[in-house]
C-alpha cells in the first residue's frame, strides 16, 4: 500500500491542479477564461496553480493576440502527460486494492 501511495505525485494533490491536467490531457490547448469556467475557480487561484505547473514543466504557456486582445492558452507537455498518466494509474491501483 505504501509503495502505491508514494507513487502519487505531490504536484497533483490539489483539486484545481488535477482539474487543469484533466482538461489539458484531452484538449490540444485551452485558454485561461475557458479553464476558469470549466473548473469554476477564481482568477487568482487558477493563475497560481497554472504557474506552479508551468514551473515544473508539466504545462506550456502560449501567449498570442486574437485581434487586439491578448489571449493566454495552455497545453500539456510530454513530461506532464506522462506524469499525469502515472498518477492516474497509481490512483487506480490504490482503489483496486481496497
Amino acid at each position, binding site marked *: 500500500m505504501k509503495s502505491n501511495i508514494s507513487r502519487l505525485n505531490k504536484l497533483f494533490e490539489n483539486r484545481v491542479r488535477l*482539474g487543469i491536467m*484533466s482538461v489539458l*490531457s*484531452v*484538449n490540444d490547448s485551452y*485558454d485561461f477564461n475557458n479553464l476558469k469556467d*470549466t473548473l469554476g475557480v477564481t482568477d487568482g487561484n487558477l493563475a497560481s496553480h497554472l504557474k506552479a505547473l508551468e514551473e515544473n514543466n508539466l504545462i506550456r504557456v502560449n501567449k498570442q493576440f486574437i485581434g487586439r486582445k491578448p489571449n493566454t492558452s495552455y497545453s500539456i507537455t510530454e513530461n506532464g502527460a506522462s506524469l499525469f498518466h502515472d498518477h*492516474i494509474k497509481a490512483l487506480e491501483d490504490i482503489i483496486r486494492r481496497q
Partner: protein
Amino acid sequence: MENEQNYSEDIKTIKKIMEESSRFLSLSGLSGLFAGLIAVLGGCIAQFVILKSGSHGISGLISRITGEQLASQKLWLFADAATVLVLALIVSLYFSLRKAKLRMQKVWTPVSKRMLLNLSIPLISGAFFILIFFLQNQWQFIIPSMLVFYGLALIGAGKFTYSEVFYLGLAELLTGFLSAVFQEYSLFFWIFGFGFLHLGYGLFMYRKYEG
C-alpha cells in the same frame, strides 16, 4: 480510510472533467424527438399533399418533365423543406439550451464550437450541392445528397458529443445510398432518415441520459 475515499473521488473528478471538456453533452434527446416528428409531418405533406395534387409524383420530378404545374409543385416542395429545416433547428436549439440551463452548463464552449465547425462544413457543402441540383433540375440527386451530407456531418460531429451521434450519422449515410438506388421511393427514405431515425435516436437518448 479517509484518504482512500479521496482517491476514488479524484478519479471521478478527473473522468468527469475530461469528458465535459472534450464532449458537448447538452444535446437533448428531446431535440431529436421533436425534429423527427416535424420531419415526418413535412415528409408526409410532401408525399401525400404536394405530390399527390399533381399528376406525376416524384417520378415526374425525377424524369424532368416540365410544365407549369410542376413548377408550382417544386416551389411548394422547396417551401415545405425550408419550413421543416427552420422548425427543426428551432426545437433542437430550444431543448438543448434548456438542457444546458438545467445542467448549469455553458453552451458556447471550445468543444461546442469545435462540434459546430465539424457539423457545418459537410452541411454547408451539401447545401451548395443541393442548390446546384435544384437549379439544374437534377431532382434525383437532391434527397440522397440531403441524407448523405447530413450523415457525414453527424459522423464528424460525433467525436465532440455523445458517441451515439456517430452511429446516427452512419445510419443516415446508409439511408442516403438506398434513396439513391431506389429513386421511386426516395421520399420514403427521406421520411425514414430524417423522421423515424431521429425519433428513435431522440427517444433512446432521452431515456438513457435524461429520463
